């Protein structure tokens, strides 16, 4: 008796999505420079039309009217060309993804064919076989058929996305290739984007609404929106990090192209100098994040530009860069810096984020990690260092609200797949974090305060949103700033409002204190020891890594400081010998 085994058909090879992403990006760059030139041209034309040339009369009037008209016609052109440039960038980015997906599908097809050939061979070889063996062959054939169906679906999907991406590109060109389109205020904006932007909620509606809107869009609409309206999307809380990153990178590239050209031409305005410095620092920091490989491994987490706002706070700027993928990481940390940190310090902040990433992954449980340097509030300028004044709590209070909003945005962007989140506040940033956790329900799971001058409105760890058991503190016994916090007997209101709240390393505050000493520590309190908490192979970075990885119970505790009624506050850590590079205590990475 013969049994028929139905073997599914071969799969035809799939064409690789056409085009070269890098080549397309050079076109985008070329168009962007052209756009900058056009914008400068129209600005200059406007200046030249004004009648400040000590020239009056009919002739002057006639010239002025004519030239003004000319200038105004050219004004929107730079913007239009810029949008097309951005659109080409978005196309290139998507093309890269599609080509990578194509490679995956092609190798799926290859392995499918191999399995199919094996099955055919086995079927042909089978002479008189038992029921069980026939059943096994039929099962294999069934599985192979399912596999083929799956691959075929992937292929159809890929082809649809390729077509959409190409159509998007074509429409970019055809939608802006006449003089009328060039000088229209919506020139270069695709119909898709125009339609979708109308339904975008305002920021006041909250991140959940923003996230719902984004989820309602097709991939094509999203790409069109990023190309056409990156300014509106780069800081939109609730949007996934990948979208914000795409929008912010476009904005960064545009700023750099424009300002660097002006610098070369000698037309950079004084108020633009700081903006250019901020943009350059962001580029440097982002390049480091993108290229970072954990030493001794092949782990390359990549970078994301989550926030880019170079003009904020009169030029101090706001920026946030993550190492790892905020949208998918199991563990996400937000590092809040302290006094004197400004946007041009971003490269240092990202370097810290890479070391924290390394520490969280070293001897970690294997969970994926993303660490984000977040400079989203206005840090005090550092009066403490220059004048011996303690900065007021106003900025911490404002910063706390902003931090809580940022975390709400992160939460809303992946409500279906929440991360284990940690907020780490250093120095004045710890006071900011305290405000967020006490007054604004900071929605993280764990909080670590390092080098804290005081916990703002909180008197006890239980005042924090995460609950006392999830509050950790690191204090270097020689950290000068940490002495500003109260110990218990000494309350801030007794001393003309010096200090910024309770010392979280104290018994009275009730947090989990972890070891944070350094072999480099000074004799007495000083500023260098205020800044060592993220040093590689330090006790502090080791413990922070454990907390970020979701294992705060595995930190190395340090005895809390306390304030006896009969004398000055006592810090038991003062006399302990500090360690560095010791496994299980202060080793945060592989040696090389």
């Amino acid at each position: 008796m013969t049994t028929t085994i139905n073997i599914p058909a071969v799969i035809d090879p799939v064409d690789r999505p056409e085009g070269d992403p890098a080549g397309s990006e050079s076109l985008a760059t070329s168009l962007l420079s052209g756009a900058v030139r056009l914008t400068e041209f129209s600005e200059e034309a406007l200046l030249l039309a004004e009648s400040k040339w000590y020239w009056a009369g009919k002739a002057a009037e006639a010239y002025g009217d004519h030239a003004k008209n000319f200038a105004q016609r050219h004004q929107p052109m730079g913007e239009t060309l810029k949008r097309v440039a951005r659109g080409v960038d978005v196309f290139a980015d998507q093309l890269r993804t599609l080509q990578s997906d194509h490679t995956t599908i092609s190798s799926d097809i290859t392995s499918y064919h191999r399995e199919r050939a094996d099955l055919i061979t086995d079927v042909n070889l089978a002479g008189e076989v038992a029921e069980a063996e026939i059943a096994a062959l039929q099962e294999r054939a069934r599985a192979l058929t399912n596999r083929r169906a799956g691959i075929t679906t992937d292929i159809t999907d890929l082809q649809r996305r390729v077509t959409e991406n190409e159509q998007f590109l074509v429409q970019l060109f055809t939608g802006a290739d006449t003089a009328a389109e060039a000088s229209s205020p919506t020139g270069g904006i695709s119909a898709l984007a125009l339609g979708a932007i109308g339904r975008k909620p305002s920021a006041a509606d909250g991140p959940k609404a923003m996230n719902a809107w984004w989820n309602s869009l097709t991939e094509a609409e999203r790409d069109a929106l990023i190309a056409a309206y990156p300014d509106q999307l780069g800081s939109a809380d609730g949007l996934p990090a990948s979208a914000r990153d795409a929008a912010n990178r476009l904005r960064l590239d545009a700023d750099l192209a424009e300002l660097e050209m002006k610098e070369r031409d000698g037309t950079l305005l004084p108020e633009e100098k700081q903006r250019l410095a901020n943009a350059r620092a962001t580029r440097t920091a982002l390049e480091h994040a993108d290229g970072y490989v954990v030493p001794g491994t092949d782990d390359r987490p990549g970078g994301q530009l989550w926030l880019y706002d170079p003009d904020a706070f009169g030029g101090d700027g706001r920026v946030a860069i993550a190492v790892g993928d905020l949208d998918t990481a199991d563990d996400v940390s937000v590092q809040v810096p302290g006094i004197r940190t400004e946007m041009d310090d971003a490269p240092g902040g990202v370097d810290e984020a890479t070391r924290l990433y390394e520490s969280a992954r070293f001897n970690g449980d294997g969970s994926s990690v993303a660490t984000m340097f977040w400079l989203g509030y206005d840090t005090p300028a550092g009066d403490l260092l220059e004048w011996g004044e303690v900065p007021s709590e106003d900025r911490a209070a404002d910063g706390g609200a902003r931090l809580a909003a940022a975390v709400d945005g992160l939460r809303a962007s992946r409500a279906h797949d929440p991360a284990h989140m940690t907020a780490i506040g250093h120095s004045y940033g710890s006071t900011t974090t305290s405000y967020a956790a006490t007054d604004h329900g900071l929605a993280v799971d764990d909080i670590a305060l390092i080098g804290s001058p005081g916990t703002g409105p909180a008197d006890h760890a239980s005042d924090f949103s995460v609950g006392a058991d999830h509050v950790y503190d690191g204090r270097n016994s020689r950290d000068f700033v940490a002495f500003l916090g109260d110990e218990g007997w000494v309350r801030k209101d007794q001393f003309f409002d010096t200090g910024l709240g309770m010392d979280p390393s104290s018994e009275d505050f009730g947090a989990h204190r972890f070891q944070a000493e350094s072999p480099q520590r000074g004799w007495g309190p000083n500023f260098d020891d205020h800044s060592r908490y993220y040093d590689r192979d330090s006790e502090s970075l080791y413990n922070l890594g454990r907390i970020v990885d979701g294992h705060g119970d595995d930190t190395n505790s340090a005895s809390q400081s306390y304030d006896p009624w009969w004398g000055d506050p006592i810090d038991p850590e003062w006399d302990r010998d500090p360690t560095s590079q010791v496994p299980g205590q202060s080793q945060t990475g592989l040696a090389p």
Partner: protein
Amino acid sequence: MGAVGILALLLGGCSVTPADPRAELEARAATIDSAAQDVLDSLHAAGVDEATAKGHVDGCQSEPAPGVSYRAGIAAKAGSDLASAFDALVQQLDASGWKPTDAYRDVKIDPAKPMGRFTRDDVTLDVKTGGGSVGGKWYGADEMQLGITIKDGCVRVPDGGYIGQVRDLEKDILPRS
């Protein structure tokens, strides 16, 4: 702590940013690179070949007292008998002036994966064996990992992302040929 106490603390000050931080960093890097090359020689003499050495630039100290440091890392294939390779290396290190320290006295060391810390002048050499786990994946099970740092290695730098200007100091450190 009284108000007077706070004033006294303020007088403690902090370290000063040198006039030419890059030059300071380069000087330290030169010392470390030279020590790394010595260690490569020692490894070779101990029968451990296939060693690669790299110089790394790290930020040390955050704002408001930012700094940059330089260190060297070496990965060397030591085969399946890490303990013997380690012992052979220790002999060579001793011969070239490295003194052992008791930095790991409180650590439970697996005898099959020995580790030790050595110093010579201002330079510290950390030797670990058997690799480690990063992100749940084991790296370097048959390797020695060596790290070289220098005393007072953190060079104060000015604000504004200075670290970007010295990244070019990172390098592959080649043995003296």
